[in-house]
């Protein structure tokens, strides 16, 4: 008994540590944590680690293998320790138990078929480069989106208020930040998801994890083969129901004295409740009654889930991928129609990026210039909420590679600064008919000012004026020109490269050093 108490407490402590650290990673705007630390904290997150492994096949991305081994040993302890979305649900559940009289949860029916269907569907589609179901349901990505879209704005507001008060007494340790909105769709999606999660967890506890979560489904199957399990001792158990009352997964059948360990989320709460030591965590005795029955029905469910997923595959494939278009505000000017969106640095190609990003929004949060924003339909429906470079909001800092370094799924591959300096995300395009210099006959040149490679240069025009000319070969597609351009619609913009290319280095000619000893020219 005593050991189980310690074990449970340890589980709570570990889960809270991971919960807080991961929350901080997503909420932070100062880039305070080192890349190595962020990678270490997210190392065990299942879906990012698996995706990273697929695209990198590196040793640093083997966290999911550790989780598989842990599950084969002890069951789904991942769901109650390392998964921040699991801990978030536990917090709602704890609050309910703390502040209402209802200590028990409704017994939900089991949705194993749906759960397996989601698992099969998301795996199959992932293999074929369609990550959409995983993007919608991955627990870490949903947690990230909730933090970045809903919690972070509150955090920034508090920071700005704090900065404001400190500045009034001449302390400038804090500073105000205005990252702008992520995207209305992503905010609404996170809100809807959070409301669903609160409703489910308050009513049915951890039903999400056993119905909609693809990681839960996979680890559930694996945990059938776990060496150590939670089980009821048929001889001691009095069917008093104390353990099943605290079970968040509803996986204990007190009358049959069985535990469906595939649905157990490993919270260990039940272990501390039994007055007779009738509930155990260890190697169960070979008892055909406990072992085989749920297994058989599960196999049937798995097959049914397969059919369900194939049916939905067919229906999904009917959805076309529409192109996002912007219409100009000034009808007399030419609209900017981008054929391809600009994907963040390190994304290699739209194909690679769209197939491996689960839209966790970590890059959205970490980007110092706040240029990375969740997309709507720019990548098509399947890329919903995957981040893109929004050059109306900001531009990409020439000497920055943070997003590529911290991406947990490998959708963005790590870059070094020298690579980034010649990495071409897209190519500059100039629309003379929209440009101030052409339409108003006054100097502007904002685009050329901000260009880091001088892919936008100014050339004499109409005697005294200067008009931009572009050299797409040395353009890196950072969007500084597009962001700075004062016209609506823009006169200069970056057309995304569907496959990122290498830009030519700007030609550098020697300058002659003037004679410093010359006299003053006045």
């Amino acid at each position, binding site marked *: 008994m005593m050991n189980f108490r310690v074990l449970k407490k340890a589980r709570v402590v570990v889960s809270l540590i991971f919960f807080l650290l991961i929350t901080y990673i997503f909420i932070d705007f100062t880039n305070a944590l080192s890349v190595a630390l962020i990678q270490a904290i997210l190392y065990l997150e299942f879906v990012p680690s698996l995706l990273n492994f697929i695209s990198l096949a590196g040793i640093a991305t083997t966290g999911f293998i550790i989780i598989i081994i842990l599950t084969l040993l002890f069951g789904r302890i991942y769901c109650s320790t390392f998964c921040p979305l699991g801990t978030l649900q536990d917090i709602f559940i704890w609050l309910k138990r703390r502040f209402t009289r209802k200590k028990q949860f409704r017994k939900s029916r089991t949705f194993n078929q749906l759960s397996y269907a989601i698992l099969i569907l998301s795996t199959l589609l992932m293999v074929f480069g369609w990550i959409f179901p995983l993007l919608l349901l991955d627990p870490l990505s949903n947690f990230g989106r909730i933090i970045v879209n809903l919690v972070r704005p509150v955090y920034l507001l508090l920071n*700005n208020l704090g900065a*404001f008060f400190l500045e009034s007494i*001449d302390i*400038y340790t804090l*500073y*105000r*930040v*205005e990252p702008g909105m992520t995207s209305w769709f992503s905010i609404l999606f996170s809100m809807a998801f959070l409301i669903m999660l609160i409703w489910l967890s308050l009513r049915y506890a951890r039903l999400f994890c056993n119905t909609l979560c693809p990681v839960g489904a996979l680890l559930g199957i694996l945990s059938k083969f776990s060496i150590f399990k939670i089980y009821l001792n048929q001889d001691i158990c009095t069917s008093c129901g104390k353990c099943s009352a605290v079970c968040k997964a509803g996986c204990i059948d007190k009358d049959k004295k069985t535990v469906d360990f595939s649905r157990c989320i490993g919270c260990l709460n039940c272990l501390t409740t039994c007055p007779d030591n009738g509930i155990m965590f260890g190697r169960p005795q070979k008892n055909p009654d406990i072992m085989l029955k749920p297994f058989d029905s599960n196999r049937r469910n798995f097959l049914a889930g397969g059919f369900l997923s194939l049916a939905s595959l067919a229906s999904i494939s009917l959805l076309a991928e529409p192109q996002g278009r912007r219409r100009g505000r000034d009808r007399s000017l030419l609209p900017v129609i981008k054929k391809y969106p600009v994907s963040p640095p390190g994304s290699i190609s739209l194909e690679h990026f769209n197939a491996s990003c689960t839209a966790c929004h970590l890059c959205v949060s970490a980007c*110092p*210039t706040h240029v990375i924003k969740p997309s709507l339909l720019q990548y098509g429906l399947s890329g919903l909420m995957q981040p893109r470079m929004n050059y109306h909001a900001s531009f990409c*800092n*020439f*000497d*920055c590679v943070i997003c590529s370094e911290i991406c947990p799924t490998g959708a963005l591959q790590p870059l070094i600064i020298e690579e980034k300096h010649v990495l071409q995300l897209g190519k500059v395009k100039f629309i003379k008919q929209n440009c*101030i210099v052409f339409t*108003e006959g*006054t*100097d*502007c*040149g*904002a685009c*050329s*000012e*901000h*260009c*880091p*490679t*001088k892919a936008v*240069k*100014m050339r004499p025009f109409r005697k*005294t004026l*200067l008009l931009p000319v572009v050299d797409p070969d040395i353009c890196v597609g950072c969007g500084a020109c597009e962001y*700075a351009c*004062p*016209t609506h619609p823009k006169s200069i913009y970056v057309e995304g490269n569907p496959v990122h290319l290498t830009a030519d280095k*700007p030609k*550098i*000619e*020697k*300058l*002659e*050093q*003037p004679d*410093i*000893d010359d006299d*003053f*020219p*006045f």
Partner: protein
Amino acid sequence: MKRRDFIFKGLGAGVLAGSGISLHGFSRIMGNPIAPADGEYDLVAIKGSDPVAMFDKGIESMGGMQAFVKPGQTVVIKPNIGWDAIPERAANTNPELIGRMISSCYEAGAKSVSVFDNTCDEWKNCYSKSGIEQEVKKAGGNIIPGNSESYYREVKIPDGKNLTVTKVHELILDSDVFINVPILKSHSSAKLTIAMKNLMGVVWDRRWWHKNDLHQCIADYATFRKPDLNVIDAYRVMKRNGPRGVSTEDVVRLDAMIISRDIVAADAAATKMFGLEPEDIPHISIADDMGIGNMNLSELNINRIKM
């Protein structure tokens, strides 16, 4: 003052007083027969040393920092910190110069000295990579953010032609003394960026200027709050690809500095040092026409110091 000087000056002054021409006017006509005393120059140009030494020499000739900063006053220094670039790229004002200026403000009795810019690149990178943040902290100044619209207050610019309303950083509006410390650079849209152009970094919405005749807006803003002192860093000078520059290959050494109260005169002198004529830079001509300052250097008392 030597006895002979005293007699000569006294004599001259007497003659001039009689004929109703000021000493100032006399020296203009006669091509500077009498050197004005320190503190009476319209403009000081220094050449041939490092920024700190040139500043010390130059400000002494302008009557010392105490001529600009009185004890207990609050000072704001506005360098160019626009870019995420190291000092050798000459995209930002020399950091040691800023450090020295802060110390000299404190020596003159300043209550506080604050430094900020509304940067073009990401502001924290600009502040640190320019080396300015470190120098400000070392010298005991405040390095203040300019990255949030909430720091800017809307003001009217009654003498502006195009630019009549704009949002200005509160430090510019609330400080007693305003010192402008640009770096001389080539500029793709304004041709050159010097003292007047540097003031684009104290307002929030620069896009509006680009949209509504950039040169006129630069001159318009200079009618609003003229800096009490302009110190132009022309030690390292970006000769092309400005204002951001592509590499250190865009930079030459001029080892020079211009100090003046007159922002237009300072710009005119720096333009000539760059190798261009003030008339070729539209915002300088416009500012001269609007009476903001004097770009005709032959009409000014200039102290030329070679070190």
